[in-house]
């Protein structure tokens, strides 16, 4: 089922100062389509968990509406909502066996014991848990607990699955494995899902769309590609991956919406932009380090910048450079073919250039 958040805000009383208020979420609007998996990505404290808990019903929004399908569910208590949460701590009942944990939701609904058993066994088989039916939770590994928690949520066939940093307690290797596992299961059951994380690689791999949040506000909603290559603002550009912001001045806007801008010693025609600019506006050209080309040479007039290598880190497949331009600005660049292009040393004079197709314009 589709999920819609309309003007959601949440204000908490500060637990330490009765008169102070904490704005955890403000004016959040979002539509998630049926079967879609959306990630909430943002720094700690930006309101991801709060938004998730508003969807699941554990927090009431101070203002705004939560819609599930064509029903407004604000007044539905969490136990009546058709949402299922996978908790960061997994929240597996310690006094019940694995099988009993997974059966919990069906038993509450009063499903007959033999049907419960069948369904539990079926879901345990799809999740590679069959052997663990009678285990007690304290005998499970982290990855197994994770899967038990997921199975326990999915068996109820919820309309919406909510994950709150489900992998943060696992080690790096298992994390990589589990995110594909979660994605596989989500897709095979076709359940609308929200996935909270502050790991951008995780968000990129599991989601159809990413919601970037900061200080309670949505900064951008888009596919991983859009978020990375057309960031809507400085925060998003900076938060996802490494980035250079190049001071630029608009020369003109042509008929098909492209901008001709002065960058460094050069002029470029840039296609992608957020915002509307006119001649003379100061703007920022957003360019990723891997989109820059670096070549050795004395003051090549065709390139954007001439600079001096400050620092070079050779990583085998790539080389990472910090390049000083005009004696002050540092630009980061990554080259991918050290064998062919050569490796420059610090102190080398270099020229920097890029293909305007990789650049994106933002207001200052």
């Amino acid at each position: 089922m589709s999920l819609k958040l309309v003007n959601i805000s949440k204000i908490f009383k500060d637990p330490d100062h009765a008169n102070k208020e904490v704005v955890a979420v403000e004016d959040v609007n979002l539509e998630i389509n049926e079967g879609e998996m959306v990630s909430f990505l943002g720094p700690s404290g930006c309101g991801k968990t709060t938004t998730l808990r508003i969807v699941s019903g554990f927090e009431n929004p101070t203002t705004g509406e939560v819609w599930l399908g064509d029903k407004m569910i604000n007044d539905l208590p969490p136990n009546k909502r058709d949402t299922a949460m996978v908790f960061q701590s997994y929240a597996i009942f310690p006094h019940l066996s694995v099988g009993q944990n997974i059966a919990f939701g069906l038993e509450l609904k009063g499903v007959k014991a033999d049907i419960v058993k069948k369904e539990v066994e079926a879901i345990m088989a799809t999740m590679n848990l069959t052997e663990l039916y009678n285990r007690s939770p304290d005998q499970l590994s982290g990855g197994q607990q994770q899967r038990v928690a997921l199975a326990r949520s999915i068996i109820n066939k919820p309309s919406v699955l909510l994950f709150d940093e489900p992998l943060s307690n696992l080690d790096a290797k298992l994390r990589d494995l589990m995110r594909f596992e979660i994605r596989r299961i989500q897709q095979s059951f076709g359940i609308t899902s929200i996935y909270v994380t502050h790991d951008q690689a995780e968000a990129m791999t599991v989601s159809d769309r990413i919601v970037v949040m900061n200080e309670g506000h949505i900064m951008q909603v888009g596919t991983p590609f859009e978020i990375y290559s057309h960031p809507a603002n400085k925060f998003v550009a900076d938060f996802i991956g490494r980035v250079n912001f190049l001071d630029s001045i608009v020369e003109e806007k042509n008929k098909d919406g492209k901008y001709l801008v002065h960058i460094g010693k050069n002029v470029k025609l840039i296609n992608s932009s957020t915002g509307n600019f006119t001649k003379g506006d100061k703007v920022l050209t957003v360019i990723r380090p891997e989109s820059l080309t670096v070549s050795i040479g004395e003051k090549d007039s065709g390139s954007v910048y001439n600079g001096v290598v400050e620092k070079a880190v050779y990583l085998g497949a790539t080389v990472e450079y910090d390049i000083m331009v005009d004696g002050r600005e540092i630009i980061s660049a990554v080259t991918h073919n050290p064998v062919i292009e050569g490796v420059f040393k610090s102190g080398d004079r270099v020229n920097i250039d890029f293909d305007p197709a990789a650049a994106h314009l933002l207001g200052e």
Partner: protein
Amino acid sequence: MSDTWGRRSLRQLRQIANDPLLLIVILVILASLVLFIIYPLSKVIITSFLPDGKFSFSVFKEVFSSWYLRQAFYNSIMMGILTAVAGVGVGFVFAFTLARTDIPFKKFFHLIAIIPIISPPFIGALSIIMLFGNNGFISDHLLHLQNIKIYGFRGLLFAQVVTFFPVAYITLRGVLDSISPTLEDAALDLGGTRFKVFRRVTLPLALPGIASAMLILFVETLADFGNPLILAGSQFPILSVQAYLQITGMYDLPKGSALALILLVPSISVFFLQKYWVSRKKYVTITGKPTSSTLKSVSPIAKWILFAVCTFFALTIILIYAAILWGAFVKVWGFNNTFTLDHFKYVFSVGFGAVKDTLIIAGISTPIAGILGMVIAFLVVRKEFPLKHFMEVSSMLSFAVPGTVIGIGYVLAFNSHPLLLTGTLLILLLNFIFRYVPVGIQSGVAILRQVDPSIEEAAIDLGADSRSTFRRVTLPLMVPAFFSGLIFSFVRAMTAISAVIFLVSSNWNLMTVQIMSQVESGRLGAAAAFSVILVLIILAAILIIRAILTLKYGRFGGTTLKF
């Protein structure tokens, strides 16, 4: 401010109203706390300030103009202070020796220090009379002393220290165990002498615990009734006994209430001082991996001195219990030492009713108190509702209120229609339930704070309403705490006297009250036999509850008492 409070309450109310059962439970609990804790206490206040329906200080003027009652106040306070100091001293020696040295027979010393907790609090007094009284074993037989002054100050202080030092021991043992001995090792390593390390590291770290133990002992001694009733005598009046005598001897309810109130004020103030100030100031010593210390912080000489001191106290306690045991099996204590079972026969013929009544009352009231305690703990930790703070404080209040005060309050509150309860089983049950509910609350709160709230949220998320969440998830997780709380409150219920002595009747009597009246009429043998049976019942109950726990859970989830 009040506006936002009002609005918040309203919002909370609206949420609770979604869940009628929760609302009903909260209302019933609040109503019963008011009726069975607040109302009796306010009766004490009203009766002492409004002796003839009009507000006046006349009763208090009368009390303080009496030299004798003034003396009772001084004596009680002084006895409280001295017991606190001496009891914590002995308790600390025990705790330090057992926590920080490798003397032999540690387990034995631990058990000895625990025993007084599971026996009636006046056993010390009873035994002292048997040993040092007019026909006492030691005074008369061994030393041929006449008229050694055991009644009054000295005897009472001795009995109180013996009775209450175990409380200090348990508190301080917990404190010392939580201070990593590696800290002391580190200080030694930095070149401190052992004594300096003790003075500059161990003692300061234990200081909040010591202060806390002293305050607890002060309150308990102040409230104690059994030992003073037996030992204080008329030369050395004690408040709790005087309040009792005013009510049962002279039927002077206003004066009795006034004395109770005078007893209540220092108890409550010190209790809250302990709870909200001292107990907050505890140090947490941060340690990495637990390392076993080599216990080098005590020099060999000091170790054996401590061992000798502990042995001395242990022997004293053994002597006290041996006297009781012996007294229960000889014809006439002090005169005729032939073995007999007469006292037990007497107990089982005359006093069997009291044994039965005690078991019924403790058996019914303590599980109810335990469950109520778990429910209140759950509400207080996990739910938001108006008057939550009131529920928390008023339900913990009976920890602070001396039994004498509660007893008088119940007499005053429930002696007329529509709440005519005096003489019934119900009044005893209610008294016990609301007196021991804090035990359950404490252990319930402790365990709930360890349970991740998302475990309960997971159940709700899967479709459980608040009732099935509590029944299927929260309650099973609280069961070990319930049972360990049960042991503690059962012991307290079996050994209680100060409140119930006002509430017993010919229909419903209690063993402790029986023991008292045997002592008063000079039948020490019967009193001793009663005491032996009482302690045996308690031990049996503890063993049964522990067996249930071990069978079901494979471990003892104790939070209050470790045996």
